[in-house]
């Protein structure tokens, strides 16, 4: 800005007939705004960061010391490191691969349009989108719906989730085991509760206790509806529960396994002599798999990074594709004529020629990642925001949110500025080089 001021006074080396004074009306509005609202605040923030919360007392570097010892802020630092290490590289790599692949299809423009679209909408809206995508309830979030769907193909959901024997059975890992032993010739009736009658399969027949059979252990499993009936007894309206796996266990080993019929009856034909424990296998009653807690404290940062990848990949593709189209076709053809495979051409010719573009994309993404705020703010539910915290969010929280400490907030702002400063120098150097 000093140089800008000087320019208004000196008018020596101007072009003939052109006074540098004429630059003043053109430059003044923009320079005044930049000076008042960008440069002055930068200086002010640096000074303010050495004062306490109220701004009255000079505290030296205490705000910085506090910042580096506060656990919330340290989590934010850690997350920023994770972001910087993972996200820009992932997007640059993905962008490179997709940009190269789109060169081989006819609908490349349409494809890039689709992937670029997230750049147009707000980070707030993207946040809402991904909060919905990753919602925990599989009846709401599409990711958990898919996870549950795949899971249930490989291990199907149980027939009677949540159902359990009324009494006389102990819950074990393998299922509900009878407390009293039984043996061949007995009949046992097991009333089950905790399952909605309307969900009983249509083929279920009315329940009635079996008669005893010579050398056989027989039994009945039925849904004991307490409303309009007596607990523990088979009422006329009650039905047997088909398809339940029942096991007979003797000395810890399964000696018989059978399944209830449509009337809820089961039979162990040849158990041999001796007592057994009747066990209703766990697989009958397992609660359905409900997917993963994506928005919980363990997965929250990867989840937010994935949403950022969704937003930024289109940018990387478009930028890299522009670089690709500038690569001379001759170089690629020459390599192919020399017998290089497509992979070698990509690895040895395309990537080296593209590396300046890749560097610009990468640096741009790093800057973007350092300033990440909205996505974390919107996607992380309040309870896990501490776990997902990043510097830009912490700065807002400390200064305007719950904190109200503008000294500490200023220190965080200055730290953020210092982290971005190398990128500033990178930009300035690149700008100077392009001019010369």
């Amino acid at each position: 800005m000093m140089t800008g001021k000087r320019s208004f006074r000196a008018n020596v080396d101007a072009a003939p007939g052109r006074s540098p004074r004429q630059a003043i009306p053109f430059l003044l509005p923009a320079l005044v705004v930049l000076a008042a609202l960008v440069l002055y605040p930068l200086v002010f923030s640096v000074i303010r960061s050495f004062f306490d919360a109220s701004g009255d007392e000079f505290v030296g570097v205490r705000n910085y010391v506090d910042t580096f010892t506060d656990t919330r802020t340290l989590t934010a630092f850690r997350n920023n490191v994770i972001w910087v290490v993972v996200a820009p590289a992932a997007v640059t790599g993905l962008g490179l691969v997709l940009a190269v692949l789109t060169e081989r299809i006819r609908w490349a423009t349409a494809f890039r349009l689709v992937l670029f679209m997230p750049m147009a909408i707000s980070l707030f809206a993207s946040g809402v989108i991904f909060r919905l995508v990753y919602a925990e309830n599989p009846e709401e979030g599409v990711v958990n719906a898919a996870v549950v769907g795949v899971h249930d193909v490989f291990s199907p959901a149980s027939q009677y989730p949540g159902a359990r024997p009324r009494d006389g059975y102990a819950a074990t890992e393998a299922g509900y085991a009878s407390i009293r032993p039984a043996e061949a010739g007995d009949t046992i009736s097991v009333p089950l509760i905790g399952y909605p009658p309307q969900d009983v399969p249509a083929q279920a027949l009315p329940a009635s206790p079996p008669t005893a059979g010579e050398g056989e252990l027989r039994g009945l499993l039925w849904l004991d509806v307490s409303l309009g009936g007596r607990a523990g007894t088979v009422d006329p309206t009650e039905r047997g529960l088909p398809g339940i796996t029942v096991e007979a266990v003797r000395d810890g080993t399964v000696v018989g396994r059978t399944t209830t019929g449509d009337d809820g009856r089961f039979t162990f034909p040849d158990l041999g002599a001796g007592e057994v424990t009747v066990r209703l296998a766990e697989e009958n009653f397992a609660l359905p798999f409900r997917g993963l807690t994506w928005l919980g404290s363990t997965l929250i940062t990867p989840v937010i990074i994935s949403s950022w990848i969704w937003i930024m990949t289109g940018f990387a593709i478009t930028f890299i594709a522009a670089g690709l189209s500038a690569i001379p076709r001759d170089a690629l053809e020459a390599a192919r004529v020399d017998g290089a495979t497509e992979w070698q051409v990509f690895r040895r010719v395309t990537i080296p020629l593209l590396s300046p573009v890749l560097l610009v994309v990468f640096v741009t993404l790093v800057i973007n990642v350092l300033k990440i705020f909205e996505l974390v703010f919107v996607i992380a539910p309040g309870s896990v925001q501490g776990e997902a915290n990043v510097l830009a969010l912490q700065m807002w929280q400390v200064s305007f949110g719950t904190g109200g400490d503008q000294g500490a907030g200023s220190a965080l702002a200055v730290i953020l500025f210092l982290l971005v400063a190398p990128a500033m120098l990178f930009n300035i150097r690149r700008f100077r080089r392009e001019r010369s």
Partner: protein
Amino acid sequence: MTAVADEVRIDVPVSGTPRRGVLTRLVSRLGNGCVQVVLALVAVFWLVPVVGLLLASLRDESANTASGWWTVLTKPAELTLANYADLVADKTVWQSFLNTFYIAVPATVLVVVMASLASYALAWIEFPGREAVTVVVVGLLVMPIQVALIPVAKLFGAVGLFGTIAGVVLFHVAFGLPFAIFLLRNFFTGIPRDLIEAARMDGATEWVIFQRVVLPVAKPAIASLTIFQFLWVWNDLLVALVFADQDSAPITVALRAQLRQFGTNIDMLSTGAFLSMIVPLAVFLVFQKYFVQGVLAGSTK
């Protein structure tokens, strides 16, 4: 086989890819098929989240709590515009939607006007310190806005701009200028020197040259900047979160209050989020070319 091989060999010089047998061509054909499938899948992955939000916004609350948005694909009868009607009838939300225009339009116009003026001086008027000013502008491109939040909040508080639309606009103008100047200056310097010199020979003032020569030529760059800046401001949350009060809040800030009960508010939130997306999506689809150029140039922001 030989006949085929001969044919291939005849093909070779035309296609410019020698040493390719039938097999390699088959593999590459198959490979191309794979590429098509993979890219189609990627595109679907990119579309599903947005389609999900749209469909959720078109189902009422009870439908959204009972089942996922995808069930609407088999039950299109569930679709309704009721959420949008409710939202538009909600005074706060509708006012915030209008506020977003009141903020984005002036912030865009001011940036475009101030930046074109400044860029003209930086590109075509010789003055001492021109290089330094340009370098400062390039340096400011990546300036994090966090650096200015506290000081500007104090400044605005002192002059009565805190919590007003004007304050939000001014802040956006300040942080929009570096990129705007960078973009336009680059474009202006590309204008042929002869064009400017000829006008000077004819005795045109700088103002006339700017208006009659530079601006007409620079239309595409100004279009890119306008669209980029408009969407940038439209999509902002952080600046308005700090500088706007309840009456001047844009739609992102107004909806933010609903986030706390995400699960139960999904009908309202998805509708609000989609309402806030309609303008950017329309601008994007209509002016794609300019927008993409603007983003590529201004990605460093």
